[in-house]
């Protein structure tokens, strides 16, 4: 029975340690986050009653747009996110327009001068996605004025 008592002791120490390290992990996690965001756990004067159920998830798509990045949802989206938003914003992609050849030359430029890695078999996926979704739109030498917000001007 001495053996059983010893076992219990070990179990108790084991649970105690588990609890201790578990709490330590939570505490250190909280502290690390406090370093990242100093406003964490600094309670504002007003009590916030809002709840945030309808949050934007990392991979939510709405009306064909990946909400987190603004990319169009299409084949190759995830490959594009992982390879193209590491160094720069997705906005730098979505505001540009080029055909396949143009996108390849941009990729080459980034590989030669900006430390972009070899994309391997992902390159064709990425280029196809970009040329299809962010291809060249034909326009003239001067566009019409568009999206004008009309308002009454009071002199």
């Amino acid at each position, binding site marked *: 029975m001495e053996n059983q008592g010893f076992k219990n002791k070990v179990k108790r120490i084991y649970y105690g340690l588990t609890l201790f390290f578990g709490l330590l992990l939570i505490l250190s996690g909280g502290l690390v986050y406090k370093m990242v*965001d100093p406003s964490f756990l600094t309670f504002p004067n007003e009590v916030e009653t809002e709840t945030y159920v309808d949050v934007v998830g990392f991979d939510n798509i709405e009306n064909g747009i990946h909400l987190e990045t603004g990319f169009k949802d299409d084949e190759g989206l995830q490959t594009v996110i*992982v390879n193209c938003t590491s160094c720069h914003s997705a906005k730098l992609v979505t505001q540009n327009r080029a055909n396949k050849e143009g996108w390849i030359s941009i990729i080459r430029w980034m590989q030669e001068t900006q430390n972009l890695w070899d994309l391997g078999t992902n390159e064709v996926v990425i280029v196809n996605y970009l040329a299809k979704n962010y291809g060249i739109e034909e326009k003239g030498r001067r566009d019409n004025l568009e999206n004008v917000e009309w308002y*009454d*001007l009071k002199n």
Partner: protein
Amino acid sequence: MKRRKFIRNTFLGTAASLIGADIVFSSSMPKNYTPIGLKDPDPYTLFNKDKDMTVLNDKPWNIEAKAHLLDDKITPNKYMFIRNNGNIPQNIDVAHWKLIIDGESVSTPKTYTLQALKSKFKNHTYQLTLECGGNGRSEFNPPAKGNQWTVGAVSCAVWTGVRLKDVLEDVGIKDDAVYIGYHAADTHLSGDPEKEPISRGVPIEKALQEETLLAFKMNGRDIPLAHGYPLRLVAGGWPASASGKWIHRISVRDKVHDGTKMKAPAYRVPCKPVAPGEKVKDADMCIIESMPVKSLITYPRSGAMISQGEKLHIRGHAWAGELEVQAMAYSIDFGATWHTCRIEKPINRLAWQHFNASIAFPKKGYYEVWARATDVDGVSQPMLVPGWNPKGYLNNACHRIAVKVK
């Protein structure tokens, strides 16, 4: 905002498990990858910018104004565009900030503390126009890669500092000096410490101009961090990329500076005109120096509706790089007839000039008010997008606003 709270709340509950998840995923994440969800989403607070400014890019930060936001005679920080090539430097230690002047064309390199710079040399203040070389890029066809600036990558703030000329004279430069190149504290997006995001400069003649400053104040206060705190080279009238931010070293070169973004095709245009879309060899690309003549209608905002019989009062600014603007005109009939605007002299060389006019409309309907500046050499803004170039620089086409008379 909701995102941050979401993350915060999630962390509150399951900090440990999230950190665990982070470690697991990091092995399959590319080097230096920052999960998109952890970026600060509010540049307006971060940089004290007006909510109507347009964020073109958040890594690196590139933010532009709209024409009507630039109505002030002196551009306040909240309406000043941001063009960054790399990451904004962190933890700037002003007390230990030093400026080194070195290069092939100095006899002995010399180092100044910020305090020494401010007290040793006479301080000067100028209002200086800074326009991004790629302002207007969005209109080129075929499109050019890069930030798709529309009209708002221009500012004219008041800069206070010491003349680069005075500092270079104090160091002593050799006769063979042809260029200066700046080195700054911003860091490369890839995280590679060996890479400079940008290191441009100007020919020695421009460096020695009275208005070329090593500035430590903007609009009477410390320069905002995003605009180069604590020390910025300001070379008005040239592509704003020549006005390096967060400067800690200036090299006086015996050749054209060869830093990052000095080489083709960056900030260069074809030496000879080319057809839209034409391939241009690097050797045939020439460095942009003075910016071309340009103007903006800053009041009213496009979309104004007035009643028949009412006059429309317009105003704005005009600038011409190294030159002065000589004349300003407007047209309400797509350039068929032009009418003179009143235009003021610049407050100093390289500052933009203010124009205004009162316009009567012949009948009800839709109009566009087009503005056109002409520099002292008689060169005017084109109504169409000017000569296509591979990188989409120097679009100085006339600005216009839509107006309805009811």
